[in-house]
């Protein structure tokens, strides 16, 4: 028996005994009862997703940005080899400058999120949420109207195809149909078989976005990144279009790359911070506390920080060196 039915069974005989006069106060009593039972702490099942969400930036999601840095990733041998072959100069090629980054860059990039809602004018129901693109990201449309996922042979794009629904207090979504892309700007790859599951939570004026990326080819375990954003009183505007320009690569030049075992930057990040090689190269065991205990005896801390000690991003140090 449900709690509602129990309540009716409990209350009905008493109401009968009250007579006409007592019944007059019933609406007042029921409203009071309802208020008590609902309690003061209930939040809406859905939160207002729309608006501008500024990045908080107190978490390091991809250590920005030395070339060989795969910390916090669980890579397969194939994924590691492919990543070590990557040369950032690829992004200087005219035809790749405006390629943009894939869906994962929503939480890996440094920008905020500007979200809008599209409503079906006939039914007034939400059809989709859109997170607008910025210069080097293609945005994300989350379809909320229950449309089916396309065939696995359908067109794959940088943005992919995303459907969403409200579960409890969170917006959950799944992205498939992405092009071959990256899970880090440092060249760590994702295949077109990858899937990204999203969780959007809002607490007060902070929205936390959790990305769970799964790739059967390049990831041994899912890559989980959570990034928080704060509701911004001012609208964000990142829509500057990408304009390709000459960056030292001529049309027809080959694609810059390294032989995986000859990447000249393989030790750079390791040396900066005295980090263990297997952690920087994304071995799965390095994501768990046991690994911390394993390296305790051998870890040699780097020398004290002297400059730019509070600025985010290793590129700060790199420029200075």
């Amino acid at each position, binding site marked *: 028996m449900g709690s509602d039915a129990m309540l009716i069974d409990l209350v009905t005989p008493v109401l009968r005994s009250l007579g006409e006069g007592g019944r007059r106060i019933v609406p007042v009593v029921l409203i*009071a009862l309802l208020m008590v039972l609902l*309690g003061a702490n209930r939040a809406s099942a859905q939160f207002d997703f729309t608006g501008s969400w500024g990045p908080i930036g107190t978490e390091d999601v991809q250590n920005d940005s030395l070339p060989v840095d795969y*910390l916090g990733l669980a890579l397969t041998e194939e994924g590691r080899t492919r990543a070590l072959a990557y040369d950032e100069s690829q992004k200087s090629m005219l035809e790749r400058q405006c390629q943009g980054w894939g869906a994962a860059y929503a939480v890996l990039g440094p920008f905020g999120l500007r979200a809008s809602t599209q409503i079906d004018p006939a039914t007034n129901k939400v059809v989709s949420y859109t997170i607008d693109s910025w210069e080097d990201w293609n945005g994300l449309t989350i379809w909320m109207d229950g449309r089916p996922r396309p065939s696995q042979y359908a067109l794959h794009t940088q943005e992919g195809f995303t459907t969403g629904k409200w579960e409890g207090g969170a917006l959950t979504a799944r992205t498939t149909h992405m092009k071959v892309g990256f899970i880090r700007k440092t060249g760590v790859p994702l295949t077109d078989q990858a899937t990204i599951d999203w969780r959007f939570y809002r607490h007060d004026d902070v929205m936390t976005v959790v990305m769970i990326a799964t790739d059967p080819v390049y990831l041994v375990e899912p890559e989980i990144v959570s990034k928080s954003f704060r509701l911004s009183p001012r609208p964000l505007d990142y829509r500057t279009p990408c304009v390709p320009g000459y960056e030292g690569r001529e049309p027809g030049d080959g694609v810059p790359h390294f032989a995986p075992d000859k990447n000249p930057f393989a030790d750079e990040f390791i040396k900066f911070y005295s980090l263990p090689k297997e952690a920087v190269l994304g071995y799965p065991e390095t994501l768990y506390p046991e690994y911390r205990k394993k390296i305790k005896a051998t870890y040699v801390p780097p020398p004290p920080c002297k400059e730019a000690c*509070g600025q985010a991003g290793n590129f700060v140090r790199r420029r200075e060196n």
Partner: protein
Amino acid sequence: MRRGLAAFALCLSVSVTAQAQTARDTAPIDLTGYWVSYVTENWRYRMVTPPKGEYRRIPASPAALPIINGWDPVADEKAGNQCKSFGGAAIMNVPGRLHITWQDANTLRIDTDAGTQTRRLHFAAAPLNAKPQAASWQGDSAARWERTSSTEGGSSLRVVTTNMRAGYLRKNGVPYSERTTMTEHFDVSALPQGGQLLLVNIVVEDPTYLNAPYVTSPHFKKEPDGSKWDPTPCSSTW
């Protein structure tokens, strides 16, 4: 009139019954069990001790800088302060395992194997005449469920912690003061390939050593049992 009073008494009695349910009885999500840190973010700040003097990503105030630059783990150890980086505002980011249990019907308990710390999250308010507690590493935590009204359930645990002893946000001596307030939300969701994920969103506010709130969101995977539970004492260097 008497009938009116009887109805009001009935209403009150039903409401008291509803209110008398404990936090454990009304828990909309199950946080109990063993959880392991899955360190995919802030790796360099969590899995190893960062360089002395570095405080990237933490909005440290000018007042914090002398403490950051003067960090002396040997002195901390000698003074019995080796748990400074295992205090309430830092502990959820320290890689390790959580064991979450109900200590009683209105107190959720979190034990950590890293640093062997215990947090008690109190759903029932302390009596008005209760004696003020001395500040402690884990402070005083007031908890409440934040429910959604959706039919499929889903909810969050909100915890506000104060009265913590001054400690470190990071192992390398980035400080927080005794005036710190920490607000946390615990959310649980299913992982796509099975298992559960616990996300803890943490907002640390310190009028002394922070210029802005310090927000982190460590996450944990659920484990089937405590076979990997491995308590270790606090250390000022690791």
